[in-house]
């Protein structure tokens, strides 16, 4: 173990004993290959068992470990000390969310939004299992695949200035997921989801700053999802105004 040290400032908040968050500095050994999560685990195991944060997979796929590292939303398991060395780092809970304790945020609002956009296939008719799988060409799969890669880590919400101003904004992850199902050749629920997306808390607050796509660790590109949805929503709006409901066949293409 090298004897070089590394400093890490962590935002602490214990609602039972503190009225407001405070910064606490820890000194840890500098290990080149450590992730920020490894550093937190070192602190929890050896220095201070009271530090609280979420994590599980340590391989950037479960989406638990999002935090602000030096002011940027990051997956802490996939962010390495070496990229900040020499120097120090500051770790804070994800921006724009209420803090429950230390680095743990409250994500209830996101769970509600997720449910709201109907993130499941709404087929025209149920296909019996005995008839086997739906056919879907690789091209049809590619249309929505990217938007199915979201790990719900919420980094995009922390990066989004509009969400900071309007907590009820459905936001990048939920809207991308809505598009994921809308673009799926097996789905016929686009009307229902567009009705939800096409509201003042849906796609419209988005000013296309694009920071959601920049911070997304899975390259989902929510900004483009929202743009696409805006276009569909506009078309839907015209259709609804110009054509009475029911005059078109449901079904997306």
């Amino acid at each position: 173990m090298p004897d070089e040290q590394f400093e890490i400032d962590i935002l602490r908040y214990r609602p039972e004993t503190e009225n407001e968050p405070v910064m606490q500095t820890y000194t840890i050994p500098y290990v080149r290959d450590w992730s920020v999560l490894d550093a937190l685990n070192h602190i929890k195991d050896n220095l201070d068992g009271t530090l609280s944060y979420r994590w599980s997979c340590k391989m950037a796929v479960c989406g638990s470990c999002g935090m602000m590292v030096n002011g940027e939303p990051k997956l802490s398991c996939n962010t390495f000390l070496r990229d900040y060395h020499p120097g120090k780092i500051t770790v804070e809970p994800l921006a724009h969310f209420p803090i429950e304790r230390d680095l743990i945020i409250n994500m209830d609002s996101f769970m509600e939004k997720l449910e709201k956009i109907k993130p499941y296939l709404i087929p025209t008719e149920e296909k019996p299992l005995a008839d086997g799988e739906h056919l879907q060409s690789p091209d049809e799969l590619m249309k929505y695949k990217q938007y199915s890669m979201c790990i719900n880590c919420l980094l995009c919400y922390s990066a989004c200035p509009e969400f900071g101003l309007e907590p009820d904004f459905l936001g990048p992850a939920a809207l991308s997921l809505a598009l994921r199902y809308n673009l799926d050749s097996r789905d016929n629920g686009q009307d229902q989801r567009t009705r939800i997306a096409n509201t003042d808390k849906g796609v419209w607050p988005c000013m296309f700053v694009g920071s959601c796509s920049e911070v997304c660790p899975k390259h989902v590109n929510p900004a483009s999802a929202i743009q696409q949805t805006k276009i569909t929503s506009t078309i839907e709006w015209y259709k609804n105004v110009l054509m009475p409901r029911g005059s078109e066949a449901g079904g997306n293409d």
Partner: protein
Amino acid sequence: MEVITTDIVIIGAGGAGLRAAITVAEQYPDLKIALISKVYPMRSHTVAAEGGAAAVTQDHDTLENHFHDTVSGGDWLCDQDTVQYFVEHAREELVQLEHWGCPWSRKSDGHVDVRAFGGMKIERTWFAADKSGFHILHTLFQTSLKYGSINRFDEYFTTDLIVEDGRCQGVVAIEIATGSMRLFVAKAVILATGGAGRVFRANTNGAIVTGDGMGMAYRAGVPLQDMEFVQYHPTCLAATGILMTEACRGEGGILVNKDGYRFLQDYGLGPVDPWPRNKAMELGPRDRLSQAIWHEQQKGRTIKTENGDVVNLDLRHLGAKKLQERLPFICELAKDFAGVDPVTTPIPVKPAVHYTMGGVKTDLTATTPLPGLYAVGECASNGLHGANRLGSNSLTELVVFGKQAGIYASEYAKNVAVTNQSAIEAQAEKYRQRIDSLLNRAEGNERISTIRKEMALTMEEGIGIYRTGDSMQATCNKLSELRERMKSAKLDDTSSVYNTELFLAIELEAMLETAASMAHSALNRKESRGSHQRLDGYENRDDVNYLKHSLAYYNADGDPKIEYADVCITTSQPAERVYGGAADDRGK
């Protein structure tokens, strides 16, 4: 204590728990479900599965093939009635996932594609690139949102089962956000809490994979079956244990030692050509591959690194395009966590603990010996995997038997009533006091992280790829010592809100019990079979004495009691396991 009354409690919202919940919601809409999980469902470790899920799919494949691959892969310790049910229902369940939206990879004709996997005679592994578990989990979770009867309790930590009048009638769980305990009274309980890989030091498992459900059932008197069978996956990143899926080899990747030599040919898996070839060389079963790497290390033919001895997983010949299409996540992980680009450089890998074949004893209906208690997924042992699981059988297991658990638990719940509510509440109170005393222990100087690390190390040393009586005994002794020391573990954190240290302590208590069940079951099995290999005079399989499941029973005052139960053999009599050229010759 707040009481929540429901019909069915499901503990765990990974692939198995979600499949069970959806079954109950769809087929028994009148039953109320409480779905409890210590993490948000999409964080469950099913999310990390990469390679895919097996089901007979191609015209030239048969159920008999899948049956035989599984039974021989499990070194004949599989319950063949379970395996038969499994192979018959596998495809239907994967189609069901497709109907719910799972983005399986496709062939150009629009049908679902399949890939080769270790120990499987014909390609039959369905995959969603190399994020199969991620897509299965999110598909199931998102689909579950359709059903109003599923009441989720996210970030609730279950600590104990309530057993009253000889049956399981509920659980107690702590709301992590507040620290307050709730009593869930139910007519049936389904455990779907996942594996226990974190009892070992080097492993591919997430932080939450701590065997809590095994521990709960075990303490409630339910036997843990076949716990000595722990799967080491041969190809994991050395520093972190992060998995490099078997699909790397399914797609044509090779394993070489420090001389660039494909060493598997020396261990009954060759010859090398023709390549690729199913059930040969790199597509042999995991136990054999991990054992071969161990031998290479003994011979000094592995590569020394600061993170231990490794061999190389070489994917370069697959080319950038195929790697990007079939194994994009692997490329990302290798770059981020090992600093290697698989397009240009072989990936250094070594074996790490991956999967617990053993678990709460069940059968093909997910029913445990305790009335009212069901178990499914990696926490259960229904006899499917025997002494060695074949890769890609377990994701399918989650859905095939998740559905079974839903049905059997519902049928049971429909026909019983909760009895003796006041005794149930008294029990819950007792469990709360146990947690309170752990939280507020005045004396004690042990750190839980120290005990956890010592446990993981002794498991690695004693219950490794190869075992001896002495090494296993030493581990058993060490575990008893740790169990004692755990009684003076003292927490830094005595608060109520998100006291994550408390949950680490409760997990550790359960892990020490689970670890002991593994170590003692291993020590008692005086033969070598599948993933349990001994070097001390018991190098061979002994069907006369040990063609048996081991059952570990909890003993509050000391070592577990080990008993044995028969294996269900229907059509396949135990025979020699053969791979590589020998298997081809046999097939002719």
